[in-house]
Protein backbone atom coordinates (compact mmCIF):
# COMPACT_ATOMS: atom_id res chain seq x y z
CA UNK A 1 0.00 0.00 0.00
CA UNK A 2 1.41 3.34 -0.98
CA UNK A 3 1.70 6.11 1.64
CA UNK A 4 -0.78 8.23 -0.31
CA UNK A 5 -3.35 5.44 -0.27
CA UNK A 6 -2.73 4.92 3.42
CA UNK A 7 -3.30 8.61 4.07
CA UNK A 8 -6.59 8.42 2.21
CA UNK A 9 -7.68 5.39 4.21
CA UNK A 10 -6.42 6.66 7.58
CA UNK A 11 -9.57 8.48 8.77
CA UNK A 12 -11.77 5.57 7.73
CA UNK A 13 -9.57 3.10 9.62
CA UNK A 14 -9.76 5.22 12.76
CA UNK A 15 -13.50 5.60 12.38
CA UNK A 16 -13.93 1.85 11.91
CA UNK A 17 -11.83 1.19 15.02
CA UNK A 18 -13.92 3.71 16.98
CA UNK A 19 -17.20 2.11 15.85
CA UNK A 20 -15.86 -1.38 16.42
CA UNK A 21 -14.73 -0.55 19.95
CA UNK A 22 -18.03 1.13 20.74
CA UNK A 23 -19.95 -1.91 19.50
CA UNK A 24 -17.67 -4.41 21.22
CA UNK A 25 -17.58 -2.33 24.41
CA UNK A 26 -20.75 -3.85 25.91
CA UNK A 27 -19.30 -7.36 25.42
CA UNK A 28 -16.27 -6.30 27.45
CA UNK A 29 -18.36 -4.42 30.00
CA UNK A 30 -17.81 -7.14 32.59
CA UNK A 31 -14.07 -6.86 32.17
CA UNK A 32 -14.14 -3.05 32.07
CA UNK A 33 -15.47 -2.92 35.62
CA UNK A 34 -13.50 -5.89 36.93
CA UNK A 35 -11.41 -4.70 39.83
CA UNK A 36 -8.29 -6.83 40.18
CA UNK A 37 -5.96 -5.61 42.89
CA UNK A 38 -2.83 -7.68 42.10
CA UNK A 39 -2.49 -6.09 38.69
CA UNK A 40 -2.96 -2.45 39.77
CA UNK A 41 -1.10 -0.07 37.41
CA UNK A 42 0.30 -3.04 35.48
CA UNK A 43 2.27 -1.83 32.45
CA UNK A 44 1.24 -3.00 28.97
CA UNK A 45 2.02 -6.67 28.39
CA UNK A 46 1.03 -9.61 26.17
CA UNK A 47 -2.04 -10.47 28.26
CA UNK A 48 -2.97 -6.84 28.98
CA UNK A 49 -2.26 -4.98 25.73
CA UNK A 50 -2.68 -1.52 27.29
CA UNK A 51 -1.98 -2.39 30.91
CA UNK A 52 -4.29 -1.90 33.87
CA UNK A 53 -5.48 1.21 35.72
CA UNK A 54 -5.32 2.21 39.38
CA UNK A 55 -8.06 -0.31 40.26
CA UNK A 56 -6.54 -3.08 38.17
CA UNK A 57 -9.16 -2.75 35.44
CA UNK A 58 -7.89 -3.49 31.91
CA UNK A 59 -7.29 -0.17 30.12
CA UNK A 60 -8.30 -1.62 26.73
CA UNK A 61 -11.74 -2.58 28.01
CA UNK A 62 -12.13 0.84 29.66
CA UNK A 63 -11.11 2.42 26.37
CA UNK A 64 -13.80 0.44 24.53
CA UNK A 65 -16.42 1.48 27.09
CA UNK A 66 -15.28 5.10 26.70
CA UNK A 67 -15.61 4.77 22.90
CA UNK A 68 -19.27 3.94 23.43
CA UNK A 69 -19.75 7.06 25.53
CA UNK A 70 -18.02 9.37 23.06
CA UNK A 71 -19.90 7.85 20.12
CA UNK A 72 -23.26 8.23 21.85
CA UNK A 73 -22.55 11.82 22.88
CA UNK A 74 -20.94 12.78 19.56
CA UNK A 75 -23.86 11.64 17.42
CA UNK A 76 -26.53 12.37 20.03
CA UNK A 77 -25.50 15.99 20.37
CA UNK A 78 -25.25 16.51 16.62
CA UNK A 79 -28.64 14.92 15.93
CA UNK A 80 -30.44 16.92 18.61
CA UNK A 81 -28.73 20.24 17.96
CA UNK A 82 -28.88 19.98 14.16
CA UNK A 83 -32.60 19.16 14.30
CA UNK A 84 -33.41 22.05 16.66
CA UNK A 85 -31.01 24.46 14.97
CA UNK A 86 -32.17 23.64 11.43
CA UNK A 87 -35.80 23.98 12.45
CA UNK A 88 -35.36 27.37 14.16
CA UNK A 89 -32.99 28.67 11.49
CA UNK A 90 -35.32 27.49 8.75
CA UNK A 91 -38.31 29.15 10.38
CA UNK A 92 -36.38 32.38 10.88
CA UNK A 93 -35.20 32.56 7.29
CA UNK A 94 -38.53 31.54 5.85
CA UNK A 95 -40.88 33.55 8.02
CA UNK A 96 -38.84 36.75 8.10
CA UNK A 97 -40.22 39.78 9.92
CA UNK A 98 -40.35 39.86 13.70
CA UNK A 99 -40.05 36.06 13.99
CA UNK A 100 -36.69 36.30 12.23
CA UNK A 101 -35.64 39.23 14.38
CA UNK A 102 -36.43 37.42 17.64
CA UNK A 103 -34.64 34.23 16.60
CA UNK A 104 -31.60 36.14 15.36
CA UNK A 105 -31.37 38.00 18.68
CA UNK A 106 -31.59 34.70 20.58
CA UNK A 107 -28.84 33.29 18.36
CA UNK A 108 -26.68 36.36 19.06
CA UNK A 109 -27.09 35.92 22.81
CA UNK A 110 -26.07 32.26 22.67
CA UNK A 111 -23.10 33.13 20.45
CA UNK A 112 -21.94 35.56 23.12
CA UNK A 113 -21.03 32.64 25.38
CA UNK A 114 -17.59 31.57 24.24
CA UNK A 115 -16.98 27.93 23.32
CA UNK A 116 -18.10 25.34 25.80
CA UNK A 117 -18.27 27.80 28.72
CA UNK A 118 -22.07 27.68 28.85
CA UNK A 119 -21.96 23.88 28.57
CA UNK A 120 -19.57 23.72 31.52
CA UNK A 121 -21.90 25.86 33.63
CA UNK A 122 -25.00 23.98 32.47
CA UNK A 123 -23.50 20.55 33.03
CA UNK A 124 -22.35 21.69 36.46
CA UNK A 125 -25.81 22.95 37.40
CA UNK A 126 -27.82 20.11 35.85
CA UNK A 127 -25.57 17.54 37.50
CA UNK A 128 -23.52 14.76 35.94
CA UNK A 129 -24.81 12.01 33.67
CA UNK A 130 -24.86 11.09 29.98
CA UNK A 131 -28.25 12.69 29.31
CA UNK A 132 -27.31 15.97 30.95
CA UNK A 133 -24.05 16.10 28.99
CA UNK A 134 -26.00 15.76 25.74
CA UNK A 135 -28.48 18.45 26.85
CA UNK A 136 -25.72 20.85 27.93
CA UNK A 137 -23.80 20.45 24.67
CA UNK A 138 -26.92 20.60 22.48
CA UNK A 139 -27.98 23.88 24.14
CA UNK A 140 -24.62 25.33 23.12
CA UNK A 141 -24.30 23.91 19.61
CA UNK A 142 -27.74 24.33 18.00
CA UNK A 143 -26.81 27.94 17.22
CA UNK A 144 -24.32 27.08 14.47
CA UNK A 145 -26.89 25.04 12.55
CA UNK A 146 -29.57 27.67 13.03
CA UNK A 147 -27.35 30.40 11.62
CA UNK A 148 -26.30 28.20 8.73
CA UNK A 149 -29.80 27.15 7.73
CA UNK A 150 -31.18 30.66 8.08
CA UNK A 151 -28.55 31.96 5.67
CA UNK A 152 -29.26 29.11 3.25
CA UNK A 153 -33.02 29.61 3.35
CA UNK A 154 -32.63 33.36 2.85
CA UNK A 155 -30.61 32.80 -0.30
CA UNK A 156 -32.86 30.02 -1.61
CA UNK A 157 -36.38 31.14 -0.83
CA UNK A 158 -36.67 33.38 -3.89
CA UNK A 159 -35.82 30.58 -6.30
CA UNK A 160 -38.29 29.72 -9.02
CA UNK A 161 -39.03 26.22 -7.78
CA UNK A 162 -40.01 27.61 -4.37
CA UNK A 163 -42.32 30.13 -6.00
CA UNK A 164 -43.76 27.35 -8.12
CA UNK A 165 -44.35 25.19 -5.07
CA UNK A 166 -46.04 28.10 -3.34
CA UNK A 167 -48.18 28.75 -6.40
CA UNK A 168 -49.23 25.11 -6.29
CA UNK A 169 -50.50 25.72 -2.79
CA UNK A 170 -47.77 24.02 -0.76
CA UNK A 171 -47.72 25.05 2.90
CA UNK A 172 -44.66 26.57 4.59
CA UNK A 173 -43.77 23.32 6.36
CA UNK A 174 -43.84 21.38 3.12
CA UNK A 175 -41.79 24.01 1.30
CA UNK A 176 -39.24 24.09 4.10
CA UNK A 177 -38.85 20.32 4.33
CA UNK A 178 -39.28 19.26 0.70
CA UNK A 179 -37.99 22.21 -1.30
CA UNK A 180 -35.47 24.05 0.84
CA UNK A 181 -33.91 21.51 3.20
CA UNK A 182 -32.59 19.19 0.45
CA UNK A 183 -30.75 22.11 -1.17
CA UNK A 184 -29.29 23.21 2.14
CA UNK A 185 -28.27 19.66 3.07
CA UNK A 186 -24.66 19.80 1.84
CA UNK A 187 -23.38 22.56 4.13
CA UNK A 188 -25.48 21.14 6.96
CA UNK A 189 -23.77 17.75 6.61
CA UNK A 190 -20.32 19.36 6.58
CA UNK A 191 -21.16 21.39 9.68
CA UNK A 192 -22.53 18.27 11.37
CA UNK A 193 -19.31 16.36 10.66
CA UNK A 194 -17.21 19.00 12.40
CA UNK A 195 -19.91 19.03 15.07
CA UNK A 196 -19.27 15.36 15.87
CA UNK A 197 -15.58 16.10 16.46
CA UNK A 198 -16.46 19.10 18.60
CA UNK A 199 -18.95 17.15 20.70
CA UNK A 200 -16.50 14.29 21.26
CA UNK A 201 -13.83 16.69 22.57
CA UNK A 202 -16.39 18.60 24.61
CA UNK A 203 -17.72 15.44 26.26
CA UNK A 204 -14.21 14.37 27.19
CA UNK A 205 -13.52 17.90 28.45
CA UNK A 206 -16.62 17.93 30.65
CA UNK A 207 -15.76 14.47 31.97
CA UNK A 208 -12.20 15.65 32.59
CA UNK A 209 -13.61 18.43 34.77
CA UNK A 210 -15.72 15.84 36.60
CA UNK A 211 -18.96 17.13 35.04
CA UNK A 212 -19.56 14.32 32.55
CA UNK A 213 -20.53 10.68 32.92
CA UNK A 214 -20.05 9.19 36.35
CA UNK A 215 -18.20 6.02 37.37
CA UNK A 216 -18.40 3.16 36.76
CA UNK A 217 -19.37 4.40 33.28
CA UNK A 218 -16.21 5.13 31.32
CA UNK A 219 -15.20 8.25 29.42
CA UNK A 220 -11.86 9.07 27.83
CA UNK A 221 -11.91 12.40 29.63
CA UNK A 222 -12.39 10.72 33.02
CA UNK A 223 -9.62 8.26 32.19
CA UNK A 224 -7.22 11.13 31.44
CA UNK A 225 -8.18 12.92 34.66
CA UNK A 226 -7.72 9.77 36.79
CA UNK A 227 -4.48 8.96 35.00
CA UNK A 228 -2.88 12.33 35.67
CA UNK A 229 -2.31 11.53 39.35
CA UNK A 230 -0.44 8.35 38.37
CA UNK A 231 1.43 9.96 35.51
CA UNK A 232 4.95 9.34 36.77
CA UNK A 233 4.48 5.66 37.62
CA UNK A 234 2.00 4.69 34.88
CA UNK A 235 2.10 7.06 31.90
CA UNK A 236 0.06 4.61 29.81
CA UNK A 237 -3.06 5.60 31.77
CA UNK A 238 -2.93 9.10 30.28
CA UNK A 239 -1.37 8.18 26.95
CA UNK A 240 -3.95 5.62 25.81
CA UNK A 241 -7.22 7.58 26.17
CA UNK A 242 -5.58 10.82 24.99
CA UNK A 243 -4.22 9.19 21.85
CA UNK A 244 -7.59 7.58 21.15
CA UNK A 245 -9.34 10.92 21.56
CA UNK A 246 -6.89 12.78 19.37
CA UNK A 247 -7.02 10.14 16.61
CA UNK A 248 -10.82 10.19 16.51
CA UNK A 249 -10.96 13.99 16.43
CA UNK A 250 -8.25 14.15 13.78
CA UNK A 251 -10.01 11.54 11.64
CA UNK A 252 -13.42 13.19 11.86
CA UNK A 253 -11.93 16.63 11.09
CA UNK A 254 -10.07 15.18 8.08
CA UNK A 255 -13.30 13.65 6.79
CA UNK A 256 -15.04 16.98 7.31
CA UNK A 257 -12.34 18.75 5.30
CA UNK A 258 -12.65 16.25 2.47
CA UNK A 259 -16.42 16.38 2.52
CA UNK A 260 -16.30 20.15 2.32
CA UNK A 261 -13.98 20.03 -0.67
CA UNK A 262 -16.08 17.33 -2.32
CA UNK A 263 -19.39 19.12 -1.77
CA UNK A 264 -17.75 22.45 -2.61
CA UNK A 265 -19.11 24.17 0.46
CA UNK A 266 -17.65 27.44 1.62
CA UNK A 267 -17.81 27.63 5.39
CA UNK A 268 -16.78 30.44 7.61
CA UNK A 269 -13.65 30.00 9.69
CA UNK A 270 -14.46 27.77 12.59
Amino acid at each position, binding site marked *: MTPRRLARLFPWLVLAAWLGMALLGPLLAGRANQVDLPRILAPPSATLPLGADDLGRPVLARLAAGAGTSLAVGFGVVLVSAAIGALLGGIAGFAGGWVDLVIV*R*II*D*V*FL*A*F*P*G*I*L*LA*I*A*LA*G*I*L*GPGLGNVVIALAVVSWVGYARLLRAQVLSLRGRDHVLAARALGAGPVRILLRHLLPLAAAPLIVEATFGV*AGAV*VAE*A*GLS*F*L*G*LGVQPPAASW*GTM*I*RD*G*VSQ*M*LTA*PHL*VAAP*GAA*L*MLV*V*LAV*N*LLGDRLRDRLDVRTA*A*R
Partner: protein
Amino acid sequence: MPAAILTRLGAALVVVVGVCTLVFLLIHLVPGDPVEAMLGERAQASDRLALRAALGLDLPLWEQYRRYITGLLHLNLGQSFLDQRPVAAILAERLPATLRLALAGLGIALVVALPLGMLAARFRGTALDSAAMTLSLAGISIPNFWLGPLLILVFSLWLGWTPVSGDEAPASIVLPAITLGTALAAILARMVRASMLEVLGEDYIRTARAKGLGEAAVLWRHALRNAWLPVLTVIGLQLGGLLAGAVITETVFAWPGIGSLLVDAIKARDFPVVQGCVLLISLCYVLVNALTDLAYVWIDPRIGAR
Protein backbone atom coordinates in the same frame (compact mmCIF):
# COMPACT_ATOMS: atom_id res chain seq x y z
CA MET B 1 -19.67 55.94 10.10
CA PRO B 2 -20.84 57.06 13.57
CA ALA B 3 -24.20 55.57 12.66
CA ALA B 4 -22.52 52.25 11.93
CA ILE B 5 -20.73 52.34 15.25
CA LEU B 6 -23.96 53.20 17.07
CA THR B 7 -25.78 50.31 15.41
CA ARG B 8 -22.95 48.00 16.42
CA LEU B 9 -23.06 49.23 20.01
CA GLY B 10 -26.85 48.90 20.10
CA ALA B 11 -26.66 45.28 18.96
CA ALA B 12 -23.95 44.62 21.54
CA LEU B 13 -26.17 46.12 24.25
CA VAL B 14 -29.06 43.82 23.33
CA VAL B 15 -26.68 40.89 23.52
CA VAL B 16 -25.36 42.01 26.91
CA VAL B 17 -28.90 42.20 28.31
CA GLY B 18 -29.64 38.78 26.85
CA VAL B 19 -26.49 37.31 28.38
CA CYS B 20 -27.38 38.74 31.81
CA THR B 21 -30.90 37.30 31.51
CA LEU B 22 -29.64 33.86 30.56
CA VAL B 23 -27.11 33.86 33.39
CA PHE B 24 -29.89 34.89 35.78
CA LEU B 25 -32.04 32.00 34.55
CA LEU B 26 -29.17 29.52 34.98
CA ILE B 27 -29.81 29.15 38.69
CA HIS B 28 -33.46 28.37 38.03
CA LEU B 29 -32.47 25.44 35.85
CA VAL B 30 -31.27 23.46 38.83
CA PRO B 31 -33.41 20.35 38.81
CA GLY B 32 -35.68 20.40 41.82
CA ASP B 33 -34.98 22.97 44.49
CA PRO B 34 -31.74 24.97 44.33
CA VAL B 35 -31.85 25.51 48.09
CA GLU B 36 -32.02 21.77 48.65
CA ALA B 37 -29.18 21.25 46.21
CA MET B 38 -27.08 23.74 48.17
CA LEU B 39 -27.87 22.56 51.68
CA GLY B 40 -28.20 18.86 51.04
CA GLU B 41 -31.20 16.69 51.80
CA ARG B 42 -30.79 16.54 55.54
CA ALA B 43 -31.03 20.29 56.15
CA GLN B 44 -33.54 21.62 58.66
CA ALA B 45 -36.74 23.07 57.25
CA SER B 46 -36.08 26.34 59.07
CA ASP B 47 -32.58 26.62 57.53
CA ARG B 48 -34.08 26.12 54.11
CA LEU B 49 -36.64 28.83 54.65
CA ALA B 50 -33.96 31.18 55.95
CA LEU B 51 -31.69 30.58 52.95
CA ARG B 52 -34.60 30.90 50.56
CA ALA B 53 -35.49 34.26 52.02
CA ALA B 54 -31.85 35.37 52.12
CA LEU B 55 -31.47 34.58 48.42
CA GLY B 56 -34.78 36.17 47.57
CA LEU B 57 -35.92 32.89 46.05
CA ASP B 58 -39.33 33.27 47.72
CA LEU B 59 -40.07 36.33 45.59
CA PRO B 60 -41.82 36.16 42.23
CA LEU B 61 -39.44 35.50 39.31
CA TRP B 62 -39.92 38.96 37.83
CA GLU B 63 -39.01 40.63 41.16
CA GLN B 64 -35.91 38.42 41.44
CA TYR B 65 -34.89 39.39 37.93
CA ARG B 66 -35.37 43.08 38.68
CA ARG B 67 -33.19 42.75 41.78
CA TYR B 68 -30.51 40.84 39.90
CA ILE B 69 -30.25 43.39 37.10
CA THR B 70 -30.32 46.29 39.56
CA GLY B 71 -27.51 44.61 41.44
CA LEU B 72 -25.50 44.16 38.25
CA LEU B 73 -25.82 47.85 37.47
CA HIS B 74 -24.23 48.54 40.86
CA LEU B 75 -21.57 45.91 40.18
CA ASN B 76 -23.18 43.83 42.90
CA LEU B 77 -23.00 40.19 41.83
CA GLY B 78 -24.23 38.78 45.11
CA GLN B 79 -22.32 36.98 47.82
CA SER B 80 -20.42 33.74 47.71
CA PHE B 81 -22.18 31.00 49.69
CA LEU B 82 -18.83 29.57 50.62
CA ASP B 83 -17.01 32.44 52.31
CA GLN B 84 -19.70 35.14 52.34
CA ARG B 85 -17.54 37.59 50.39
CA PRO B 86 -18.90 39.70 47.53
CA VAL B 87 -18.59 37.83 44.23
CA ALA B 88 -17.31 40.96 42.50
CA ALA B 89 -14.34 41.14 44.88
CA ILE B 90 -13.46 37.48 44.31
CA LEU B 91 -13.66 37.94 40.52
CA ALA B 92 -11.50 41.08 40.65
CA GLU B 93 -8.91 39.11 42.59
CA ARG B 94 -8.83 36.28 40.03
CA LEU B 95 -9.16 38.23 36.79
CA PRO B 96 -5.52 39.41 36.41
CA ALA B 97 -4.20 35.84 36.39
CA THR B 98 -6.63 34.82 33.64
CA LEU B 99 -5.88 37.90 31.56
CA ARG B 100 -2.15 37.28 31.88
CA LEU B 101 -2.62 33.67 30.81
CA ALA B 102 -4.87 34.60 27.88
CA LEU B 103 -2.42 37.25 26.66
CA ALA B 104 0.52 34.85 26.98
CA GLY B 105 -1.46 32.19 25.08
CA LEU B 106 -2.35 34.69 22.37
CA GLY B 107 1.30 35.80 22.17
CA ILE B 108 2.52 32.24 21.75
CA ALA B 109 -0.13 31.59 19.13
CA LEU B 110 0.96 34.64 17.12
CA VAL B 111 4.68 33.89 17.43
CA VAL B 112 4.11 30.37 16.13
CA ALA B 113 1.34 30.99 13.61
CA LEU B 114 2.67 34.02 11.71
CA PRO B 115 6.01 32.53 10.56
CA LEU B 116 4.48 29.08 10.09
CA GLY B 117 1.59 30.33 7.97
CA MET B 118 3.77 32.71 5.97
CA LEU B 119 6.41 30.08 5.24
CA ALA B 120 3.72 27.59 4.23
CA ALA B 121 2.24 30.14 1.85
CA ARG B 122 5.62 31.23 0.45
CA PHE B 123 6.70 27.64 -0.18
CA ARG B 124 3.29 26.42 -1.19
CA GLY B 125 3.07 22.80 -2.31
CA THR B 126 6.49 21.87 -0.95
CA ALA B 127 7.29 19.46 1.85
CA LEU B 128 7.60 22.47 4.18
CA ASP B 129 4.03 23.48 3.38
CA SER B 130 2.56 20.04 4.00
CA ALA B 131 4.64 19.59 7.15
CA ALA B 132 3.37 22.91 8.51
CA MET B 133 -0.22 22.07 7.68
CA THR B 134 0.02 18.57 9.17
CA LEU B 135 1.44 20.12 12.30
CA SER B 136 -1.41 22.58 12.47
CA LEU B 137 -4.00 19.83 11.97
CA ALA B 138 -2.46 17.97 14.89
CA GLY B 139 -2.54 21.19 16.91
CA ILE B 140 -6.26 21.64 16.21
CA SER B 141 -7.05 18.05 17.13
CA ILE B 142 -5.04 17.71 20.33
CA PRO B 143 -7.30 18.29 23.35
CA ASN B 144 -5.78 20.81 25.78
CA PHE B 145 -6.57 18.62 28.78
CA TRP B 146 -4.29 15.99 27.24
CA LEU B 147 -1.58 18.33 25.99
CA GLY B 148 -1.30 19.95 29.43
CA PRO B 149 -0.55 16.75 31.36
CA LEU B 150 1.86 15.61 28.61
CA LEU B 151 3.79 18.88 28.89
CA ILE B 152 3.88 18.54 32.68
CA LEU B 153 5.17 14.99 32.33
CA VAL B 154 7.99 15.93 29.96
CA PHE B 155 9.06 19.41 31.10
CA SER B 156 8.21 19.36 34.81
CA LEU B 157 8.56 15.76 35.90
CA TRP B 158 11.23 14.37 33.55
CA LEU B 159 13.29 17.45 32.72
CA GLY B 160 12.43 19.50 35.80
CA TRP B 161 12.55 22.79 33.86
CA THR B 162 9.21 24.26 34.97
CA PRO B 163 6.98 24.08 38.04
CA VAL B 164 4.21 21.46 37.88
CA SER B 165 1.37 23.83 38.74
CA GLY B 166 0.30 27.00 40.48
CA ASP B 167 1.58 30.52 39.89
CA GLU B 168 4.53 31.01 42.22
CA ALA B 169 7.54 31.19 39.92
CA PRO B 170 7.90 33.35 36.78
CA ALA B 171 8.34 30.18 34.72
CA SER B 172 4.95 28.89 35.91
CA ILE B 173 3.12 30.56 33.05
CA VAL B 174 5.11 28.84 30.28
CA LEU B 175 3.34 25.48 30.15
CA PRO B 176 -0.22 26.81 30.65
CA ALA B 177 0.37 29.41 27.94
CA ILE B 178 1.63 26.78 25.50
CA THR B 179 -1.32 24.54 26.34
CA LEU B 180 -3.78 27.37 25.81
CA GLY B 181 -2.10 28.81 22.73
CA THR B 182 -1.59 25.63 20.71
CA ALA B 183 -5.10 25.31 19.29
CA LEU B 184 -5.24 29.00 18.42
CA ALA B 185 -1.78 28.82 16.83
CA ALA B 186 -2.93 25.93 14.65
CA ILE B 187 -6.10 27.67 13.50
CA LEU B 188 -4.28 30.96 12.93
CA ALA B 189 -1.49 29.34 10.93
CA ARG B 190 -4.07 27.99 8.47
CA MET B 191 -5.76 31.36 8.26
CA VAL B 192 -2.47 33.22 7.73
CA ARG B 193 -1.52 30.77 4.98
CA ALA B 194 -4.85 31.07 3.17
CA SER B 195 -4.88 34.85 3.53
CA MET B 196 -1.26 35.20 2.35
CA LEU B 197 -1.89 32.99 -0.67
CA GLU B 198 -4.58 35.38 -1.83
CA VAL B 199 -2.36 38.40 -1.34
CA LEU B 200 0.84 36.96 -2.84
CA GLY B 201 -0.69 36.92 -6.32
CA GLU B 202 -1.33 40.69 -6.30
CA ASP B 203 0.46 43.16 -8.52
CA TYR B 204 1.96 45.21 -5.71
CA ILE B 205 3.83 42.14 -4.50
CA ARG B 206 5.36 41.79 -7.96
CA THR B 207 6.17 45.49 -7.90
CA ALA B 208 7.82 45.18 -4.50
CA ARG B 209 9.94 42.31 -5.76
CA ALA B 210 10.73 44.13 -8.99
CA LYS B 211 12.07 47.14 -7.18
CA GLY B 212 14.54 44.82 -5.47
CA LEU B 213 13.12 44.42 -1.99
CA GLY B 214 14.33 41.45 -0.01
CA GLU B 215 11.98 38.54 0.44
CA ALA B 216 11.52 39.22 4.14
CA ALA B 217 10.52 42.83 3.50
CA VAL B 218 8.06 41.74 0.81
CA LEU B 219 6.45 39.17 3.07
CA TRP B 220 6.32 41.13 6.33
CA ARG B 221 5.81 44.68 5.15
CA HIS B 222 3.79 44.30 1.99
CA ALA B 223 1.99 40.97 2.08
CA LEU B 224 1.26 40.55 5.79
CA ARG B 225 -0.19 44.04 6.19
CA ASN B 226 -2.81 43.28 3.60
CA ALA B 227 -3.40 39.76 4.82
CA TRP B 228 -4.15 40.99 8.36
CA LEU B 229 -7.88 41.55 8.12
CA PRO B 230 -9.16 37.96 7.90
CA VAL B 231 -6.53 36.96 10.44
CA LEU B 232 -7.80 39.60 12.84
CA THR B 233 -11.37 38.35 12.40
CA VAL B 234 -10.29 34.86 13.36
CA ILE B 235 -8.37 36.16 16.38
CA GLY B 236 -11.46 38.02 17.57
CA LEU B 237 -13.69 34.99 17.11
CA GLN B 238 -11.22 32.54 18.58
CA LEU B 239 -10.52 34.63 21.65
CA GLY B 240 -13.76 33.21 22.98
CA GLY B 241 -12.35 29.73 22.50
CA LEU B 242 -9.24 30.94 24.29
CA LEU B 243 -11.25 32.16 27.27
CA ALA B 244 -13.29 28.94 27.42
CA GLY B 245 -10.11 26.91 26.99
CA ALA B 246 -8.69 28.78 29.96
CA VAL B 247 -11.26 27.03 32.16
CA ILE B 248 -9.78 23.62 31.37
CA THR B 249 -6.17 24.82 31.18
CA GLU B 250 -6.39 26.57 34.55
CA THR B 251 -7.84 23.42 36.07
CA VAL B 252 -5.00 21.31 34.69
CA PHE B 253 -2.31 23.63 36.05
CA ALA B 254 -4.13 24.85 39.19
CA TRP B 255 -3.72 28.36 37.76
CA PRO B 256 -5.45 30.82 40.14
CA GLY B 257 -7.73 32.49 37.58
CA ILE B 258 -11.42 32.77 36.75
CA GLY B 259 -11.50 29.35 35.07
CA SER B 260 -10.37 27.32 38.05
CA LEU B 261 -12.63 29.50 40.22
CA LEU B 262 -15.59 28.50 38.03
CA VAL B 263 -14.83 24.78 38.29
CA ASP B 264 -14.31 24.99 42.06
CA ALA B 265 -17.54 26.96 42.45
CA ILE B 266 -19.47 24.40 40.40
CA LYS B 267 -18.18 21.58 42.61
CA ALA B 268 -19.05 23.54 45.77
CA ARG B 269 -22.49 24.45 44.34
CA ASP B 270 -21.62 28.09 44.96
CA PHE B 271 -24.09 29.40 42.38
CA PRO B 272 -23.54 33.17 42.69
CA VAL B 273 -19.85 32.63 41.94
CA VAL B 274 -20.72 30.34 39.00
CA GLN B 275 -23.03 33.02 37.62
CA GLY B 276 -20.39 35.70 38.14
CA CYS B 277 -17.68 33.74 36.32
CA VAL B 278 -19.88 32.92 33.34
CA LEU B 279 -21.08 36.50 33.15
CA LEU B 280 -17.60 37.99 33.34
CA ILE B 281 -16.07 35.69 30.72
CA SER B 282 -18.97 36.20 28.32
CA LEU B 283 -18.96 39.96 28.70
CA CYS B 284 -15.20 40.01 28.06
CA TYR B 285 -15.87 38.08 24.87
CA VAL B 286 -18.63 40.45 23.75
CA LEU B 287 -16.33 43.40 24.45
CA VAL B 288 -13.45 41.89 22.49
CA ASN B 289 -15.68 41.20 19.50
CA ALA B 290 -17.00 44.74 19.52
CA LEU B 291 -13.43 46.04 19.71
CA THR B 292 -12.42 43.77 16.84
CA ASP B 293 -15.07 45.36 14.68
CA LEU B 294 -13.78 48.79 15.56
CA ALA B 295 -10.17 47.73 14.96
CA TYR B 296 -11.06 46.99 11.34
CA VAL B 297 -11.49 50.67 10.73
CA TRP B 298 -8.10 51.37 12.20
CA ILE B 299 -6.32 48.63 10.25
CA ASP B 300 -8.12 49.16 6.98
CA PRO B 301 -9.02 52.83 6.43
CA ARG B 302 -11.02 51.85 3.36
CA ILE B 303 -13.78 50.43 5.60
CA GLY B 304 -14.22 53.72 7.43
CA ALA B 305 -14.46 55.65 4.18
CA ARG B 306 -17.15 53.38 2.79
